[in-house]
């Protein structure tokens, strides 16, 4: 009996290790490639372990401060997009979930419709609008453009989450004298915290990875986000694979860190919901 239990635990641990390995391997391989010389990269045998004597690839990538600047810009744009998307998405989701108004179905459809248009089709008209309102070549312009794409997803996620909150809670609060904003902020928001965290992760990632608007709307080198900066390592005639891998790795780490941070809230929120009443 004990032996069977041990085998079961071992099998599960092995399965977890395999899944973990599959998830981590691409990141690990980027790290190994960044530390591999050109000769070894195309040599007869594959280097499985990183060559730590070549760690200077990372210090060289960070040396001129350009990469730090790109990452800072990316963080500002992604954080700004996340905050704005959530700030606008919460009342929008609430309105779509709880209120009946003329054109509600059209608004819902329009939100879905925006997700079907590729950025490439919108970049030209948006460029013209941004130019008119002097929003080109600025991080806040980029935040607005990215929010326009993230907001529909955020609003629909939050609408779905609010739909799941019993209307009785709203009515009880209204009987106690609360107005709709109070109901939203004091009653509903704490209950949909996990959904807000999930929506925030989506908004953050979409802005962090965004390239088309960033490369077209921002001309100033010092304002470029990392998605554009990394692409700059691909040259017409020559490309440094190691530099791309090193900077690519640095580019992914803050996003992963944010995900891990937000995931905690997603999980804790879900747990909190599970033990209620």
């Amino acid at each position: 009996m004990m032996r069977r239990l041990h085998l079961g635990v071992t099998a599960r641990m092995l399965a977890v290790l395999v899944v973990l390995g599959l998830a981590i391997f691409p990141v690990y391989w980027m790290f190994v490639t960044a530390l591999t010389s050109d000769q070894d990269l195309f040599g007869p045998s594959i280097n499985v372990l990183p060559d730590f004597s070549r760690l200077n690839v990372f210090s060289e990538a960070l040396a001129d401060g350009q990469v730090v600047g790109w990452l800072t810009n990316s963080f500002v744009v992604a954080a700004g997009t996340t905050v704005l998307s959530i700030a606008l998405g919460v009342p929008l989701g609430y309105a779509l979930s709880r209120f009946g108004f003329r054109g509600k179905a059209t608004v819902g459809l329009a939100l879905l419709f925006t997700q079907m248009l590729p950025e490439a089709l919108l970049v030209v008209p948006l460029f013209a609008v941004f130019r008119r309102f002097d929003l080109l070549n600025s991080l806040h312009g980029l935040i607005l453009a990215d929010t326009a794409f993230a907001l529909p997803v955020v609003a629909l996620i939050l609408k779905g989450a609010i739909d799941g909150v019993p209307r009785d809670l709203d009515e009880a609060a209204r009987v106690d004298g609360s107005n709709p904003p109070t109901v939203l902020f004091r009653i509903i928001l704490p209950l949909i915290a996990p959904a807000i965290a999930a929506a925030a992760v989506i908004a953050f990632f979409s802005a962090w990875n965004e390239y088309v608007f960033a490369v077209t709307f921002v001309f100033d080198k010092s304002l470029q986000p990392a998605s554009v900066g990394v692409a700059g390592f691909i040259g017409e005639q020559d490309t440094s694979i190691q530099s791309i891998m090193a900077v690519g790795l640095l580019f992914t780490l803050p996003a992963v860190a944010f995900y891990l941070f937000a995931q905690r809230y997603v999980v804790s929120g879900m747990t909190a919901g599970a033990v209620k009443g």
Partner: protein
Amino acid sequence: MPFRPNRRAKTFSVLATVAVGATVLVGCSPSQENNSGSPQPATITFAASTLGDPGRGPGLQKLIDEYNASQSTVTVQAASVPYPTFGQTVLTQMGGGEGPDLVRFDMPEFSTAAASALLEPLDDKIDASKLNLIAGPDKYLNVDGHRYGVVFENSNYGMFYNKDLIPEAPKTFDEFMQTAKATTKGDVYGLAFRQTQAEEAGVWQDIYNYVLGFGGDWSDGGKLTLDSPKVIEGLEKYKELYDANVIPKGADAATFRKMFANGKVGMELNNGGYVTATKSANPALNFSVARIPFPEKKQGSLLAPIVINANSKHKDAALDFIQWILKPEQQVKLQEVLGASSVATPTERSAESLEKYPFLPELDKLTESGVPQIVNGFGPQTADIRRIVVTEVLSSLQGQQDMKTAMEKAQKQAEELVR
């Protein structure tokens, strides 16, 4: 890896088409500016994909710095636009009434921009005879009777080969095939070329040599000839090499060029601009360049003009830089930076360059037979025709149809496009 060139390439192929429409959308017109002829104090931007090249970028930047130090009126700054989406990004910005003041375009994007009135005409500003501009490539910079640029770089396509792996360059296509097969052993490949949709522009450059080399052309100047027997023959030769398993399939240019620099690829067809990059990637590599061993002495050339954005508020300043770079002294320096490419005016190779690259005269001779990679007579539609052709050719490469069917389909689609 966060950067996804595949998806982006598809995205931007759509973008390239709509970019030109932006001119109409924003009602853009050439900006108001001082056109006195003498530059006013200004900081202008210069966008060139070569500025991002590890091999040539620093040399070009040095040249720009030299210009900036030569006077106190104009400052030229490098505009940072990543190579993978360079043409489309700059076209979108220009179509939207913005964009860099100076641009080094490749020919398909140059043709599109010129036909869309996005470029400043230089008719009364550049005197070709006085400047002794090389007539062959220069003639392509006149669109509808107007000059829109001057040659910044003209790079002929030749056959690069590793002399340690291939002591003697093949002289015929059969020898080329045999050499590629014989060199492919273990982790070494006889040949490399682009063969993925993600590198659409690069595939176009590669197949251009096969089409021209076997006597074909994409048009006769007035009518598209994508399905002509000679075009199909050239593309079938390209497919023959693909099917012979002598190339690292799936490898992109960045990867197989590194492989070439590290002795893992025997031959590749590439332009003279690649010489500097190869040397910089591996100074010890024992390589040479010879004429592409196809029956016809015709091959693609990477012609890249420098142009002034019609939206620029500092056209005189931009022109000042162009006139400076056209001076004989600067032309020699530019040529040194660009490696085996030629520039706008005839220049002599230095003894040092010839010692370093003994094959330079061979590459220079190819200027006479070099053809810029546009569809003759359909310059502005080249990018769209390119997308159609590359998609069909790659589908044939992957065994979904034979090359004849592929090119017949391409012909039909392209005819619809240009109608």
